[in-house]
């Protein structure tokens, strides 16, 4: 049953890593705005089109 010591140690370390990741995410400002990124990810990356080319009609 000594393996439990090891298991607990591993589990707490792994959990600690996740905590660290979370704290880093907060620190880097990822939690400051929880709305705009959700919209931003929906924008398509467009291929570089010719200047004269007409844009696609909006879906109405």
């Amino acid at each position, binding site marked *: *049953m000594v393996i*439990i*010591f090891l298991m*607990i140690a591993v*589990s*707490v370390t792994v*959990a*600690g890593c*996740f*905590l660290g990741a*979370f*704290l880093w995410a*907060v*620190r880097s*400002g990822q*939690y*400051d*705005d929880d*709305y*705009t990124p959700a*919209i*931003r990810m*929906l*924008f*398509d990356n*467009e291929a*570089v*089109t010719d*200047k004269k080319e007409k*844009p*696609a*009609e*909006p*879906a*109405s």
Partner: protein
Amino acid sequence: MEAALQTNVQTCYHCGDTCEKEPILAHDKAFCCDGCKTVYELLDENNLCTYYNLEQNPGISGKEALNESRFAYLDDAGVEAQLVSFRNDAICKLTFYVPQMHCSSCIWLLENLFKLNPGISESTVNFLRKEISLTYLHGQTSLREVVALLARIGYEPEITLADTDGKKTTKPNREIIYKLGIAAFCFGNVMLLAFPDYFSVANSLQRTFGSFFGYLSLILSLPVLIYSARGFFITAYEGIKQRMVNIDLPIAMGLQALFFVSLYQIVTETGPGYLDSFTGLVFFMLIGKYFQQRTYDTLSFDRDYTSYFPVSVTLLKENGEEEAVAVRNLEVGNRIRIRNQELIPADAILLRGTAMIDYSFVSGESEPVEKVTGEVIYAGGRQVGESIELEVVKAVSQGYLTQLWNNTIFSKNESQSVGTYANIAGKWFIIVTLIVAAGSLIYWVPRDTDMAVKAFVSVLIIACPCALSLATPFVHGHTVRVFGRNKFYLKNTSVVETLAKIDTVVFDKTGTLTEPSAAEVSYVGKTLTPEQEQSIKSVLSHSTHPLSQRIFQSINSDIKSVENFKEFAGKGITGEVDNHVLLIGSASFTGIKPVGDKALLNTTVYVTMDGVLLGYYTFFNVYRSGLKQILCELDDRKLAVLSGDNSHEEARLVELLGEHAALNFNQSPVQKLEYVEQLKNQHHQVMMVGDGLNDAGALRQSDVGVALTNSITNFSPSCDAILDATSFDKLGLFLRFSKTTMRIILATFAVSLVYNVVGLTLAVQGLFSPIVSAILMPISSLSVIIFATLSVKIAAKRAGL
């Protein structure tokens, strides 16, 4: 968009407005004005037409012509340094507030600014805060070019005097998220370690690993005690220092009891401790705090006069050249030019032009005030009409308005709200807890000393009113959201509770009870023939005076040619139509004795034809729609009106508000403040509803200051709540709903009390164990959260909010 072209009513491809005149057709699309067309062409040229694909007609109307020379002040290195938040050799970073932002197209365009100006290296939008963070290469572009570009595409950033104050925007408060994250981490792990205790099967496991698990949990709980739960201890301590009991005191007591009993049990190996309950409690209560803290980032409730003033003003140099300078750099003796609809930034003397100053925002007078050359014009007024020249007599920081603002009575004493339900409940809670704890101690000591200590501590632990402290944030938090959906934005959640206690409602008149932009024109006198009306309208058509414009709009008729038109500043106008001489203007100008006393107070315009009086026009305020209904709903409360205007509307107000309402006219900002103070001294709970700077003092002095605004992104004086004018008719409903929420809180208290009674019964008998605690605590917390959430939602639905 082809469909729009075929139908008769055409909407602008850019901004979606209906094209009132002939639409401008270009690129197979219809535009309402040149401004919109220009923006489209600019975007089209740069391959940015995705803008129009994301949303339909996302643009901002370009009808108001842009005067880009306005931004010249941004070239000033001092101004730039104040606005920029970071600068090195290559780049500058800064954040602008862009209130026009409204859809995903806006986000897209603003984040693709680099395609329009390669000097902009990065732009990031925070949509909820309506902010754009820009990084630009100052070698390639300038601040002025960046702002001008934003303005050109319709997103002119709002730069006010407050931005140049050097007060940098506060960083978003991340502390609560850190606390919550750490508490969640510790709670999860401690609960995992405590799991074997929950099952008697694991007894053998417990014997082998008990102390290891115990010490590990202890280590994991330390960050919770020291960091996450710090807020509760600090508030409790501050409460004690001010000799009062707040809700955090019993919480702090319970948390300490939990932790130290666990510490004792683990060290002496007498038991597993309550650390899972301890960390869980802190976690749940932090959720409540987090929920309570999330309010409206976009709205500023604490603005002062500096965010009302513009940053720049047109300075006239001695050689007659115009130059845009920062308002802050204005000096006494400077000559400035103020154009139509611009604000006067400093107290100044009128040198040239006809000044019609709209003081409605500052003093509450409904009609623009006419000033003649040589008169002093106080800062804060808005010029209506032609452009005027002024000489500054006082620096901005010395002006009348600024002085008024800095007056000490304007600052509200921000005493902690003692009388909140939670704090009152907390006080009783602690008394009852201590009595029960002492009782169990007295009962057990002669019988069993060990049991006595256990029972005593158990009572302290179980009595920790976590459910109680969760009820208020959740009920209030949901209420604030319900109000927000109905365009009533509260500064913070404690305003809900104050709202429920309001027994006196004080209204400002101009701009609050009345529509600021509308006025009714009524004609008294001889009945006018259609020809006469036509003549009057024709003469008026030549005048830009606001009163002339209003009468002009009220007459339906064609325009004839006018001869010998003359305008006498401050007096009136004259002209000849079909050989009849018309005089339109003040009583003295037209040579008429004013009729009656009442007419003196009203703004009156007399009309004579060939020297014979035809009659006069008077102007009445237009009251907001739904006013009658609100006043009916507020019937059980004391009503009052404070007006900076004169008393010509008294009769109509009495009719609206009833006999009992107190009406006060010609009130200065300080008098308004004193009136509210006086009501408060009579132990009334006062709500003040106002819109202008002249109400700022009263808004702060009142228990709840509500600023009414036609557009929530516009400037509004500092207040506790902002109400969108379109929801004005729901005011009574809001007050009633806040009362309902207080009843919900009481019901939630009752729910949590049931748990406490069960827990206490077990505790005094010495039957309280870690497993009971581990089950009871989360259940009570969760059920309180669910009960609070559901009941507010149901109540809101019933109230029709």
